[in-house]
């Protein structure tokens, strides 16, 4: 048992310690030039205690802090009564998320990754303001409780990104890859970047009205974030979810099957246990359009008389990590692929939009399934891209508009954008409201 927890055990009824130590290196290029090297060593901890049936918490970054335990105990003096105990002893699923090769990466290795991207792209796009970055991290997370939970994970992550604004425009194309092992940009990814960048040389504004819309994996969050808000056990408990009382009903198109997939192999956000030390497991959330399950942490589970689903994570829309309160969140959401090539989906559209991002999502009423965003992506006419979208907004409600999905691609990509990393295919929605010309 960690000394911090040993100390807490002498003072309070129950205690839970979250301790994360990480080392990261980031190199960043701007405009094809190496701009900065960043190296960080971070130790952070949180402590939750239950004393006389009440809960209190304290957080520390670089924790050699006097008063850390005292702060948690003081919080418990004022805290609400709790109806659950901290996690007990458990068997955790095996998850291989450590690569010694990544752990040994140095800044010079990351510079090499960036240089290879730079060399390939500078030949074809010499006048583009290309930003490139590469990073690696090794970390060790320990969650222990006085109730017997003892979860430890040594993990690594390596990633790179590159992107550039279209000439004279505020938006552009951005591509990234990440994984447990060291990452190298392959030719197909670089070629796709060049194709997309060249698509954006012209701008195009569709007419106001309803049009078919393809959500690329990068834009899957427009559907997944409202869904997350809806399947959160907390929203069901507080009756703010539009999905309350809809378990077993059709909420999306039968072409959509969505998993909570925390053991996703090779994914840097994959987890064997959540931030409360509860084991994680793959779960069908939506199966062929039918709502199958809500997500719970221990607090909300206790309120709803159901066990935690292992989804108590320190995440919010705008942050994650030590200081964030625990609430039910996706770990690695995945949308099952279909059987069509995304290129064929584009070819089949008379007029429509290929969406790669949506700006201003968080300003909308997304917990109710709604979104109204500035559309970032491409305008399609007669099966071909005619230019990047300009002066265009799309809006809708996933529980109405995603009932009618015409196609799901067999190609998948990483989806993130407010979410932990998951995977998604290209999804063709029959029609969305478009505000353009």
């Amino acid at each position, binding site marked *: 048992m960690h000394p911090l927890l040993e100390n807490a055990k002498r003072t309070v009824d129950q205690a839970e310690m979250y301790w994360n130590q990480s080392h990261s290196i*980031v190199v*960043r290029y*701007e*405009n094809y*030039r*190496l*701009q*900065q*090297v*960043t*190296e*960080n*060593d*971070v130790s952070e901890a949180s402590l939750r205690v239950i004393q006389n049936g009440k809960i209190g*918490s*304290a*957080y*520390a*970054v*670089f924790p050699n*802090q006097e008063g*850390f335990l005292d*702060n948690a105990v*003081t*919080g418990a003096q*004022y*805290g*609400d009564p709790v109806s659950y105990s901290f996690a007990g002893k458990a068997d955790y699923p095996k998850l291989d998320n450590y690569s010694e090769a990544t752990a040994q990466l140095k*800044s010079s290795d990351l*510079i090499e990754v960036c240089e290879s991207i730079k060399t390939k792209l500078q030949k074809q796009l010499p006048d583009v303001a290309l*930003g490139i970055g590469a990073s690696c991290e090794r970390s060790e997370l320990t969650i222990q409780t006085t109730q017997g939970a003892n979860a430890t994970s040594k993990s690594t992550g390596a990633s790179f990104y590159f992107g550039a*604004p279209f000439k004279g*425009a*505020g*938006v552009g194309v951005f591509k990234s890859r990440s994984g447990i092992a060291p990452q190298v940009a392959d030719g197909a990814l670089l070629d796709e970047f060049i194709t997309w960048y060249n698509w954006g040389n012209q701008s195009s504004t569709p007419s*106001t009205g309803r049009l078919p819309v393809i959500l690329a994996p990068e834009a899957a969050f427009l559907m997944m974030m409202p869904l997350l808000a809806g399947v959160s056990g*907390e929203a069901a408990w*507080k009756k*703010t979810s539009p999905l309350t009382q809809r378990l077993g009903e059709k909420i999306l198109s039968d072409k959509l099957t969505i998993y909570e997939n925390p053991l996703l192999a090779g994914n840097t956000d994959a987890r064997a246990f959540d931030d409360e030390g509860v084991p994680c497991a793959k779960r069908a959330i939506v199966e062929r359009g039918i709502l199958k399950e809500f997500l719970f942490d221990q*607090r909300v589970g206790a309120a709803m008389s159901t066990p935690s689903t292992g989804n108590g994570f320190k995440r919010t829309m*705008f*942050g994650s990590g030590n200081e964030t*309160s625990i609430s039910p969140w996706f770990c690695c959401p995945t949308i099952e692929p279909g059987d069509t090539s995304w290129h064929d989906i584009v070819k089949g559209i008379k007029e429509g939009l290929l969406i790669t991002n949506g*700006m*201003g999502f*968080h*300003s*909308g*009423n997304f*917990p*109710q399934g709604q979104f*109204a*965003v*500035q559309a970032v992506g491409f305008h399609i006419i007669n099966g071909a891209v005619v230019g990047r979208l300009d*002066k265009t*907004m*799309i*809006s809708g409600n996933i529980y109405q508009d995603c009932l009618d999905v015409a196609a799901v691609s067999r190609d998948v990509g990483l989806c993130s954008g407010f979410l932990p990393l998951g995977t998604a295919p290209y999804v063709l929605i029959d029609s969305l*409201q478009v*505000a353009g010309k």
Partner: protein
Amino acid sequence: MKSTFANIVSSLPADYADLRFEENRKIRIGYEGKELTEVATTLTSGGHVRVYAHGGKAISSFSDPGKAGPIADATCTSAILVGNSRDKKLRVASAPVITEDFLITPVRDPRTVSLKEKLDLTAHYNDIILQNPHVITTQTMYDEFTSRRIFVNSDGSIIEYELINVGVFGMIVTKKGSVVQRVRFAFGGNTDFSPLLGREEDVRKQITKAVELLDAEPAKAGIFPVVLDPSESGVFIHEAFGHLSEADGLQNNPSFRAKLQLGITLGKPILNVTDDATLPGLPGSYEIDDEGVRGMRTPLITRGVLSGRMHSRETAAEFGEPLSGNMRAVDVQCTPIVRMSNILIEAGDSTFDDMVRSIDNGYYLVGAKGGQTSGDQFTFGAQWGYRIVNGQLGNMVRDINMSGELFSTLQATSMIGDDVRFGERGGCGKGGGGPMQMNRKSGKGSPHIKIDAVTIGGI
């Protein structure tokens, strides 16, 4: 500790180096509905070192002050590695050497207020909201951040300074049938505890709006003229223009750098925009930034013409423009980036009634609900709005997001009101090439303004 750190940065074989060491304390009290979800304290301490050497730059965060020396040495080695690869060298503009402390004495210091009083206050406002029968849940938060920082640099500056930010904010969630609406509230947002007291009527006004929204109609999609209230126009100028005035975003973007040369005309002569850290009692007010440069007033647009921008010492050197004291880091894990202090559209001479009367078919949009920007593209939401029909305010509308392009929207800003107001609670999320830094100390002010055309996303 100050002299040890000063010796470390001065002894590096660097063009320039600085080191910031912080001890931070946050208190967070949170209610969700009837449930007190959190009474939590966060303690943070550690250092951050930045080194410019051979025209390159490297940065590191660290925990143990005893290891500051070796970490600074390693950071210097990385900076040399970067510098040796660059044809175009990075350098910093010269800045006054400051050996002074900047400690804060609020009217009522939140650090001296008991946890019990803070908790009771939060519970009091939460209870008021829960009394309304249409309210299905709440989020009511007390949020206090205090920071004591030491800054030293290789020029000889040795500074100790404080930051304080305290506020109450939250969300009121109402429901009628299948319609669920959310309205935000916030007060405080500066160094003083006193403004958090006696705000019951402000909370009740927001409850009323959250209930009225249940019967409002969704906004229609299309392009419309709009009047923005001071909260909305403050977000507009922050998101759409302010971020493009932060020089670190322009530094490596040749096309926008070319478009935003000082002296170009961006708007009508009625448009004046300023960033001002020296205004007292606002969220983004401060004496000294996290690069050891004094906070100041920087005119950004003067009579419609681009007249200045916000800088770091690095960007000021590269652009050949004056220092502005805008480099700030939210905590020790973050490097300073260029950020607005208090951005302000200065008062014009139109009245709100003049603006409404000038519109046949449009919207009056009220209450900031966050926004996002990318280059010259911006999107932001309104908490609620009203149709404007034939020069008169009409029905209430909900679920409003709008977007536009900076340059055409500034030109389309045709009327500016005489009623400047600042939002009490600041906030801004920016990464600047690194992880997102959510900064509480960012103020936004404006009068009502009229924009002739923006795109509204709706049904």
